[in-house]
């Protein structure tokens, strides 16, 4: 789409909220960098495992925070950025357990499983960052219980290798083993239910959303299954914690990658605060369609639609004036009504997966209500125009029907009776004595004149050949009767066209031919008809004096009206002294 000016003017880019968000994110970034730096220094100095792997661990955590900052900046109204940062923090915290320092080791032990819990939360909350329903909230809580609470007995009732036993209250290997099983079972249940929820969401999503959701959810489910799977493997095979840890980290490192893929695939448009939208509305004289674009960008839903309420017709319309309906209750798309000064203006239709919180949409609706009212008036005008066009087409069609009926009635009724009258007069003329015979002969002649005139009249209303053999045969006959050398070119296929189109086309040719013969003093004439599946093209050209005009007394004005009423186009080129060329295009879906 071509734009004459930037969607958000530079002045609006310096809104105070935006600046404050930038400062906050800068601090988060700097703090994370500092913590990661210190942690890496400690690993090099006092690490309890291979330095390379530990440094990688810390860097993965920092990577989560970096991805979180990007998401937070690009979509401040969502919470996914915050969640990603939390996940990064959890990773950095659990990494601290690998430093030979009692305090840090304790912190690391307590937080060891937390990243998995946050990851689960992250997946359930994608893409908005909010948990959309009760079961996903329960599953997220379940994830935190499994990763934060259920592991407690493991370090309270027995020492873990390489960790100072400061938290141990009693040596109870049986309790440890029991809780290990409970953790595994509960963990699996939570993960399986989460996977189920994600698959259901994927199936409910439309095609465009599905790409985004599939990239992230697919990888997320895969990750969690592998993480918990490797734990099970460790429990049952006695795989050493270090190898287990390396595998988990490798897989975990992919998660922000999958997330960024989702981010770049359209789930997260560049966004700005609603406040900025207000600033833009104040600064710019919005054109048609730009309000929708601005709202779509602001709310981060590219599929967003604006519908306008037409009070006179009691229905909604889109910006182009086409009739539209609000989504039904329970559909994946939702609508928020917009009012201005207590009057119904229209509705914002949005994707409830991308925007689960209607309050946000409603707030945006309040900001744009006035601008929407302005666009509503335009849409109302356009809808009125569409209705007018349809009604014109209906009038033309009913007029044609009337023509056909009239021609039929005249032909079968009056014309037939006149022939009988002429025949009787003729027979009387043959049988009667001279004075009466002459009068009967005169009656016959009068009747024949009447028949000839009536035939001309009926032909003018609707040529018999047009009704019986269609447009191409009728035009052939018409051109046959032109007293000028003429070239006729007809389409090869002889498909039937809608009656209104045939009538309009026939009279277009007839009018142009009549002008060429009567007024243009033409010596030659060319008539060309072309036809494809969508439209019928007509061209009538002569080498006459030109100077024909649509509005100068000719029947061309009526033809143009008829053509336009059917959604067609008529153009006339008639420069003085250079002949006349009439082109007509008529839509004909067949």
């Amino acid at each position: 789409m071509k734009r004459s000016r930037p969607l958000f003017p530079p002045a609006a880019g310096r809104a105070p909220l935006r600046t404050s968000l930038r400062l906050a994110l800068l601090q988060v970034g700097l703090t994370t960098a500092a913590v990661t730096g210190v942690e890496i220094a400690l690993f090099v100095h006092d690490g309890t495992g291979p330095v390379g792997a530990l440094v990688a661990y810390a860097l993965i955590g920092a990577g989560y925070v970096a991805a979180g900052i990007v998401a937070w900046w690009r979509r401040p109204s969502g919470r996914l950025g915050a969640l990603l940062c939390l996940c990064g923090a959890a990773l950095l915290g659990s990494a601290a357990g690998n430093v030979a320092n009692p305090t840090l080791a304790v912190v690391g032990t307590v937080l060891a499983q937390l990243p998995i819990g946050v990851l689960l939360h992250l997946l359930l909350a994608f893409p908005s960052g909010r948990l959309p329903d009760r079961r996903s909230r329960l599953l997220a809580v379940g994830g935190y219980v499994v990763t934060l609470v259920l592991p407690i007995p493991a370090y309270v009732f027995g020492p873990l290798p390489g960790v100072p036993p400061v938290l141990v209250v009693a040596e109870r290997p049986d309790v440890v083993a029991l809780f290990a099983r409970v953790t595994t079972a509960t963990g699996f249940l939570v993960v399986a239910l989460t996977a189920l929820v994600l698959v259901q969401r994927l199936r409910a999503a439309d095609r465009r959303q599905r790409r985004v959701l599939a990239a992230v959810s697919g990888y997320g489910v895969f990750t969690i299954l592998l993480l918990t799977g490797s734990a099970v493997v460790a429990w049952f095979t006695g795989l050493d914690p270090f190898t287990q840890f390396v595998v988990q980290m490798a897989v975990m490192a992919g998660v922000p990658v999958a997330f960024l893929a989702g981010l770049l695939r359209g789930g997260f448009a560049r966004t700005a605060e609603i406040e900025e939208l207000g600033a833009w509305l104040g600064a710019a004289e919005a054109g048609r369609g730009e309000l929708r674009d601005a709202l779509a960008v602001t709310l981060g839903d590219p599929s967003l639609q604006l519908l306008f309420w037409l009070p006179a017709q009691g229905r909604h319309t889109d910006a182009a004036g086409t009739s539209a309906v609000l989504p039904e209750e329970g559909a994946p798309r939702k609508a928020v009504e917009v009012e201005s000064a207590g009057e119904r203006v229209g509705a914002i239709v949005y994707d409830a997966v991308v925007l689960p919180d209607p309050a946000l949409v409603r707030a945006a609706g309040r900001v744009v209500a006035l601008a929407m009212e302005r666009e509503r008036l335009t849409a109302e005008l356009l809808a009125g125009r569409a209705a007018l066009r349809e009604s014109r087409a209906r009038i033309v069609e009913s007029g044609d029907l009337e023509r056909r009926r009239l021609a039929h009635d005249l032909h079968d009724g009056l014309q037939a009776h006149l022939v009988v009258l002429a025949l009787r007069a003729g027979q009387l003329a043959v049988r009667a004595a001279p004075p009466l015979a002459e009068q009967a002969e005169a009656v016959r002649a009068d009747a024949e004149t009447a028949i000839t005139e009536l035939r001309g009249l009926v032909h003018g209303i609707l040529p018999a050949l047009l009704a019986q053999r269609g447009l191409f045969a009728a035009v052939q006959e018409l051109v046959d009767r032109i007293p000028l050398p003429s070239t006729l070119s007809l389409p090869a296929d002889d498909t039937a066209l809608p009656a209104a189109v045939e009538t309009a086309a026939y009279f277009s040719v007839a009018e142009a031919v009549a002008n060429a013969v009567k007024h243009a003093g033409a010596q030659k004439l060319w008539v060309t008809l072309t036809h494809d599946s969508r439209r019928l093209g007509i061209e009538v050209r002569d080498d006459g004096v030109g100077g024909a005009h649509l509005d100068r007394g000719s029947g061309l004005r009526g033809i143009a009206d008829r053509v336009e009423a059917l959604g067609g186009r008529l153009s006339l080129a008639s420069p003085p002294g250079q002949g006349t060329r009439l082109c007509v295009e008529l839509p004909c879906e067949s």
Partner: protein
Amino acid sequence: MRVVIGEDEALLREGLVLLLEGAGYEVAAVADNAVDLVSHASRHRPDLVLTDIRMPPEHTEDGLRAAIAIRAAHPATAVLVLSQYVHRQYAQELLADRPAGVGYLLKQRVADVAGFCRDLDIVAGGGTVLDPEVVSAMLSRARSGHDALTRLTPRQSDVIELVAQGRTNSGIARRLGISEKAVVQHVSRIYDLLGLSITDDDHRRVLAVIRYLTS
């Protein structure tokens, strides 16, 4: 002469029966639709079938299709077609098979009883009769296109127009107010222009008409 009539309008059908019987023709059968007309023609094998173009069952060109079918099935039966309108396309279709024993007239021509009976006889005798309307339409088309025909003088055009209407030389002479000898000269000149040899006079007249009208 035995005639079968096809006409769906009852008053006109009765009028035609009266006209033909009054003029000494034998009406073998009448039909009010195209289907019956074809079967009557097969059963009675009349000398001539007289039919309206627009007839049931479809009220479009049923009579024309019936006439073409009858001509194809019974070459000995002449066909005269009547219509409220005359179209060159219909004339061409009627003549396409064999330009003999065929006529195509506006319905109103029946009122001129003597003229109509003469046309009936020409067609029944193997001649060709075309309505002046369709002939003039074809002439104007012919003038605007065909090379040989554009070389005809106005007088020659008048002559061939009357030939096409089935007039004899004497009839043409009377109509144009010239001598019969002059008509013969015009006709010969037209034959030359159309590239027809002087062998069988009647047949040539028909050929000239056909050459003229279907060019």
